[in-house]
């Protein structure tokens, strides 16, 4: 985290800010825990107060004052517009086509945006047994746009997935700690770099020959108001 000293913010903070800027006021957003939750909560506290946060535990329109550690923390239910059962969440709200943006993470991603969160190695004899798909397979089918947040490395950005947990058809953007990728003619292409990263950094952290857009943008660094809102969101206490 030497980056904090160098630039005044961490790589995770850059990722959260970049993702939050893509959420509009009124966007209905299916969020998981971790960076997506951070990004969506940041959007709600800055430029998009009307951003609707939906957690798969059944809380619709949650407005937590602190970042939850789990998708089912009590504060999500207390601050939600509605709390529904899990079967209702997946059938009526997600499958019903009422969610604009779904955030996904994964252990591996390929050039088409397909994701693996199931196993590393063969399915029947995995080197690493990962948690599995959870809500992701139907999030990837049911939302309008999928946003992926994933730290850039050769271990994660692979030429072939060990297991395809979700399809990349609806992936509109992949936000990494180095920059931003978007699909161009079906292949993820580097379209923006965060301050301090280079094309070479991104290429060497990608397990396939990474395409780079002709007009490469630079991400605006986190502004002071974004950073202070971000840091005010703290994960609830540990003993």
């Amino acid at each position, binding site marked *: 985290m030497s980056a904090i000293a160098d630039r005044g913010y961490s790589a995770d903070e850059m990722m959260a800010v970049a993702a939050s800027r893509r959420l509009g006021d009124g966007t209905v957003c299916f969020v998981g*825990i*971790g960076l997506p939750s951070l990004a969506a909560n940041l959007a709600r506290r800055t430029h998009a107060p009307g951003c609707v946060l939906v957690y*798969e*535990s*059944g*809380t619709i329109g949650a407005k937590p004052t602190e970042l*939850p*550690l*789990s*998708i*089912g*923390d*009590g504060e*999500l*239910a207390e601050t939600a517009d509605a*709390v529904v*059962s*899990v*079967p209702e*969440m*997946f*059938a009526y709200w*997600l*499958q019903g086509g009422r969610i604009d943006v779904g955030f996904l993470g994964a252990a591996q991603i390929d050039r088409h945006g*397909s994701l693996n969160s*199931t196993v590393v190695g063969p*399915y029947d004899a*995995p*080197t*690493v*047994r990962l*948690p*599995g*798909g*959870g*809500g*992701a*397979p*139907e999030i990837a*089918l*049911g939302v309008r746009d999928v946003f992926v947040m994933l730290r850039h490395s050769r271990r994660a950005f692979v030429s072939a997935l060990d*297991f*395809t*947990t*979700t*399809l990349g058809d609806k992936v509109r953007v992949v936000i990494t700690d180095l920059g931003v990728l978007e699909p161009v003619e079906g292949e993820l292409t580097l379209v923006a770099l965060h301050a301090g990263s280079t094309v070479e950094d991104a290429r060497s952290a990608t397990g396939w020959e990474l395409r780079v857009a002709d007009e490469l943008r630079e991400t605006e660094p986190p502004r002071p108001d974004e950073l202070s809102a971000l840091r005010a969101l703290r*994960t*609830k*206490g*540990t*003993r």
Partner: protein
Amino acid sequence: MAVVPLSEAVRELVGDGDVVALEGFTHLIPHAAGHELVRQGRRGLTLVRMTPDVVYDQLIGMGCARRLVFSWGGNPGVGSLHRLRDAVEHGWPAPLELEEHSHAGMAAAYAAGAAHLPFGVLRGYRGGDLPVRTRVATITCPFTGEELAAVPAQRPDVGIVHAQQADRRGNVQLWGIIGVQKETVLASARSIVTVEEIVDELEPRPGAVVLPAWVVDAVCPAPGGAHPSYAHGYYGRDNGFYVAWDAISRDREIFRAWMQRHVLDTADVAEYHASLAAEAAPV
């Protein structure tokens, strides 16, 4: 239905080799019942749960399970379930068969089970590698011709959930994040509900799930029985415990010693809490 001690309910209603679902989506996770399964040494269970987290890590690590039906197995917000991983990756303490679904598929399967239908239907399981690794089929809508996924109904032998309250006749009320608990109880051949407290009269609450006494086989008082998860209106989630579980569960011997001290050497949920408090107290 009868209000009975948890040990008696587990003895009479859960057998070795049964298909058992302990549900509660982050909230109201029936840990006290999981501990009782461990104390009574149940073996060969097929454990069903959307989100096997710490409670199933404990059951799997103690050798209670033969098979796991699930959709997401991790320590929420923390990382891996080390006992689950050890069983799958190294067969310790015993190999664990997996039947893996998505959340939407599990939810549809429970809803179908509650309705006593043979399968649930959803727009899901399209593409990817999951469909070839699990029990799912494609069916064609007889009205529109759309191709949809069919998942076999979930019909556990025993469904176990935790709730805030029951009245003296055994009617149950739970509220907050209600997860898939109603479906679990209605889908199961037998059911056990542990509760924070028994009250004279259930006070109706907005958005609550009420399970009438006649759909529940046993109601068991277990105050604090959801710990380290939480019971809305009673106590909060012990996030520190979930973080601490990572180190406890990472090592086989540390895990076993922890289970010995806090589960096997305690008689019930009250003694479990006392042993945790004794450990935390300055000497």
